[in-house]
């Protein structure tokens, strides 16, 4: 059990590092120039949407990982 918990912690850490990398690569260079004064609002809106999608994806992967690592223990 304990090794499972340490493995889950390590997997979460890895997901944070990888997720952060994807966020920097996707969101970092993202700019919009065509919409005059509103370009930063649009860019921020799109950034928020991408970030939320990434967070949802992160939670889904974590849920699958949890069920896989603790499949025996979760059958209470």
């Amino acid at each position, binding site marked *: 059990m304990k090794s499972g918990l340490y493995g889950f912690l390590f997997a979460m850490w890895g997901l944070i590092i990888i997720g952060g990398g994807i966020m*920097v690569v996707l969101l970092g260079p993202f700019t919009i120039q065509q919409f005059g004064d509103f370009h930063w609002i649009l860019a921020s809106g799109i950034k928020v949407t991408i970030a939320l999608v990434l967070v949802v994806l992160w939670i889904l992967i974590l849920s699958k990982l949890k069920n896989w690592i603790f499949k025996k223990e979760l059958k209470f």
Partner: protein
Amino acid sequence: MIELIVPAIISCILAFFVVYFTTPSLIKILVKKNYTVKDMNKKDNAMVARPGGISIILGIFASEIILYGFFQLNEILAVIITTTAAFLIGYVDDRKVMGGWFKPVTLAIAALPIIFLGAYDSDLAFPLFGDVQIPILYLGLIIFMIPITGNTINSIDVLNGVASGFMVIASFTLSICLFILQNYEIAIVSLPLGFVSLAFYKYHKIPSKIFPGDSGALTFGAMYGVIAIIGGVEIIAAIALLPAVINSFLFLSSVKRVVEHRQIKNPTTLTSDFKLKTTDDRTAPITLVRLILAGGPLTEKQIGFAIFKLAIFSGILAIITAFMMGVSL
């Protein structure tokens, strides 16, 4: 650097000893006023004083005021205001049972001084990959972060000494990371949290003489969240907090709604020799303690140490991450 040492030493001594000396008096007053709760995992039905948040906020307030006298930073004001607000929110919840919405909503409001004082940098720093500028998104992050850290620490406050012991490990880890990143002023601002937690642990450890209550747990969590924001170490702070995050994640994914802990079934029961074991009730939520107990019954002390070992492991990962911040792919 040298000019920072004197304020650091004074604030740390003050943080530790204010809590160390005021908590015994607080216990006496609380017991006299009958502000006690039953310790559910003890055979003699011991009554324990609550809430200890009063001595915790005194220690934090005294040490941070001293630091403000030295540095006059808006970041310190943000720590003082948001942490005090979190304490008051917790204190209201300690005295009067509030709905599940109360703490998240009011803690989000408590985060606003960080924005109004401009005590943040909207760049989110990631290890290996660098920073990402998210000015609008970051405001949302501030408002969400304080309720998350507050409630995360509150949700791990389930056994004698766990919340304060866990905070000792997590907050000193955060301070070490801030020193590694050469953010010395905020590192010094963060140190009192570790010393306050350490002094409170003396009275909270098994067998507890006092419980922190919601006021103590939210004070710990909110201050931790503010330091993460003003220090620009949000990702590192989240990593150091991972065991508590796992606890909240497991709880939410099994309960599937935001709910007060007092409204749910206890995921553990006691054996005849007063060890804790996982309940047979399939509808009880899955928590970190329940997973630790999956291998068989354990004493409260053994579970506490298992959680501390997990906290040390995630602390090491956080320190590795801090070193990785200096590396760019």
